[in-house]
């Protein structure tokens, strides 16, 4: 079967033509949104994390308003849900999940990994996050560190500002950004060198 001749593709083409013909959205705007969606990747979030690690004033602004902090680095947030940033510390480890569907901070992390949408990840993340992290990611949260599971149920999208790992003293932003992985910014893993 040719994918361009499926019913869903015809429906999409029809809806897009109607939106354009009625002046609701232009072809240019559709193309711009497709480009920004494709450009969104976890590299964007990693740049924010690295900057927050070296610039205390930026860290404060980022925890206050993630959307503005992303825009400061040139990340396109127009039309995206508000971004909130939760800071993990030596006392608290944050884990992001969406038990109702698959809400994900796409503007700064790109498309969610396939397992993020699985019923198994969603159920285990809220019910037994310590076991989930240890068995699937070898992320062992010590007993004296509180686990805070953030169920992303409504209009915000959440990312985690992880703890800067030891052994990175004197590193510049670019080098720091290079060690921040997608999983670190939703809390299934922690940055390591």
């Amino acid at each position: 079967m040719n994918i361009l001749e499926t019913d869903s593709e015809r429906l999409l083409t029809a809806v897009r033509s109607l939106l354009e013909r009625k002046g609701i959205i232009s072809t240019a705007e559709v193309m711009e949104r497709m480009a920004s969606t494709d450009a969104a990747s976890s590299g964007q979030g990693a740049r924010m994390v690295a900057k927050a690690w070296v610039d205390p004033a930026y860290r404060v602004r980022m925890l206050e308003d993630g959307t503005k902090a992303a825009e400061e680095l040139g990340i396109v947030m127009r039309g995206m849900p508000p971004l909130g940033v939760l800071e993990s510390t030596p006392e608290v480890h944050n884990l992001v999940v969406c038990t109702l569907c698959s809400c994900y901070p796409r503007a700064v992390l790109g498309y969610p990994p396939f397992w993020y949408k699985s019923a198994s990840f969603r159920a285990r993340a809220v019910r037994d996050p310590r076991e989930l992290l240890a068995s699937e990611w070898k992320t062992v949260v010590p007993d004296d560190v509180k686990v805070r599971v953030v169920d992303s149920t409504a209009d915000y999208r959440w990312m985690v500002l992880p703890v800067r790992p030891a052994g990175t003293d004197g590193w510049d932003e670019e080098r720091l950004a290079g060690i921040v992985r997608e999983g670190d910014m939703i809390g299934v893993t922690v940055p390591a060198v």
Partner: protein
Amino acid sequence: MFLAGETVRVKDQWPEATGPVHIRTPWYVRGLEGEVVRCLGEFSNPEDLAFARPAEKRPLYHVRFLKGAIWSEAKPDDELLIEIFGHWLEPVGQERP
């Protein structure tokens, strides 16, 4: 409006039982008590928005629940942080509807 630090209870209501709905309040906290962390702003009520009905802006709160209050096997001081619309919350001490 609820204030940061206020104890609230999620309404023990199940509109799913009576017809098609779009509810953003997870089942596992209905009827349970939590603590308001902060108001996140006002957003169009998704319960109307999902059906293309006029949707009023409603306050959205970040509410903290202790894991031990939900699942007995959980580490008691681990917590859940959930976005819940104001119309799903009631002050603790008030009679249940």
